[in-house]
């Protein structure tokens, strides 16, 4: 029972990280229908930037954290402006190939700068974050993942539901010509969705880096897991991305705990195949509103 609870908690907190990372992916897809194949590298960029600022530059953790967020957010704008905006109006496949190229380029750059070894952050999470629930002990990093995940999901949930900018972003995803006719700055919306994607990917990259160590290959492979997550939840649903993340997180930890650790990495993709066969729009994909 304790083992079960332990796995449950680990799974949920891991799931929130996947959800957070998938959120950025879904946003880009929603606003511009682009599949971002560089998503895993975005996690790595966030994790390494934080490593650079915290461990190597020796900045206080909070400062390094905030700077990482600001840095990745701005980097999102820059990347959109330099590489993606010139392709607006081109075929979607060209944009998607561009993200593939960007991903490989980012990976190469990170390997060049940081090498292929596993790095780790200095221990900075206070021991007081470790929770003791009866006989179950929850490591501080899982508690942190939980808090960060929930906090950001709530913040973005409110942003999309209530803020004007969030509503404009949803309007572009919904009906681009109409949004354009009302003066919504569509290019700015694209840019903002890239910036947010960079930011949330960095968040989950950092926490995953604390859990698994920071390695370019590993982080970019984890980034690939957004595919099972978003396919499970429905490519265009933010709520679905969250639930998809939690489900995949749970699947992974339970498989790792009860069946075999080597199967752990494969399970999300098995789930992906099954979902595609049974429910191709995902659990929460937009059911097309059609008038009859």
């Amino acid at each position: 029972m304790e083992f079960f609870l332990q796995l449950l908690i680990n799974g949920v907190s891991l799931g929130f990280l996947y959800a957070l990372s998938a959120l950025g992916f879904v946003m880009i897809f929603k606003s511009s229908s682009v599949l971002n194949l560089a998503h895993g590298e975005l996690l790595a960029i966030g994790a390494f930037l934080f490593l650079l600022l915290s461990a190597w530059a020796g900045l206080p953790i909070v400062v390094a954290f905030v700077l990482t967020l600001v840095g990745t957010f701005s980097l999102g704008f820059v990347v959109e402006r330099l590489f993606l905006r010139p392709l607006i109006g081109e075929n979607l496949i060209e944009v998607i190939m561009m993200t593939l190229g960007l991903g490989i380029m980012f990976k190469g750059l990170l390997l060049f700068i940081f090498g292929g070894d596993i790095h780790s952050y200095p221990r900075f999470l206070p021991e007081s974050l470790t929770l003791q629930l009866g006989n179950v002990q929850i490591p501080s990093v899982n508690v942190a993942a939980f808090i960060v995940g929930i906090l950001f999901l709530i913040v973005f949930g409110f942003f999309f539901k209530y803020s004007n900018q969030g509503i404009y972003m949803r309007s572009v995803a919904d009906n681009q010509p109409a949004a354009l006719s009302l003066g919504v700055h569509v290019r700015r919306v694209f840019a903002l969705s890239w910036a947010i994607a960079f930011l949330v990917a960095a968040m989950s990259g950092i926490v995953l880096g604390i859990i698994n160590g920071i390695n370019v290959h590993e982080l970019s492979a984890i980034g690939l897991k957004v595919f099972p997550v978003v396919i499970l939840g429905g490519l265009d649903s933010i709520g679905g991305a969250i639930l998809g993340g939690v489900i995949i997180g749970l699947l992974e930890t339970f498989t790792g705990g009860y069946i075999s650790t080597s199967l752990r990495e494969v399970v999300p993709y098995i789930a992906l195949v099954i979902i595609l066969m049974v429910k191709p729009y995902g659990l929460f994909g937009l059911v097309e509103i059609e008038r009859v």
Partner: protein
Amino acid sequence: MENHIRLLINNISVVYSDVIQVLKGVSLSVRKGQIVSLLGSNGAGKTTTLKAISGLLKPENGKVTEGSIEYDGKPVQNSSPEEITRMGIIQVLEGRQEFKYLTVEENLKVGTATRWGKPYQQDLKMVYDYFPALLARRKSLAGYCSGGELQMMVIGRGLMAHPKLLLLDEPSLGLAPLLVKEIFQIIRRINQEQGTTLMVVEQNANMALQIAHYGYVMENGKIVLESPAEELRDNPDVKEFYLGTAASGALKSYKDVKSYKRRKRWL
């Protein structure tokens, strides 16, 4: 005289994808505070004319290749829709282009995109005053609203932007006759009470000429007729071709169809 003109289109040609010419030298003007209707059959170029004004040709690979469009004296042809909407020209697209997955009120809020960050509660109230039916539906997804509600919503959404020139593309499309009447009355009220200058593209010539001050008729990418709306209503050709009554005022019989075709080429 000059400064009473809100919009002046001077001999424009519009070409799509560098080869397909849709407008061939269209000229028209819209005076401040007036309602101008643009009539014509399918494919005459009415929507293209509106899109040339609002800058929405660009995403469709269309371009104004000749002539000029002046708005309050400033040339705006081939500007981006972001710039044009911020100058106060808002086009309400044909066929009720709602945001399906946004609620009615969120749809209206998107109308404030040109003046982001400014208060809009007053404007919401104004829209609900003009279209009380929307108030009851404000929390429901637009995708589940009726055609009439959606038409009201998209006009209201345009109003949220404080337009100085509102371009309406076929507001009567697919609506029941009573609803069409109601919507046109509201359009007239908006013009009178808000002082908004309006340009209305319509197939329903009868309705459009009732509320308009001035009218233009388009055929094959050209303006073929123009005059004050009441004169246009009495024009025998317009009566026959667009209002569906013979020059005498009686309903047309089928045997006249041939003459209709012959006459129309004359226009």
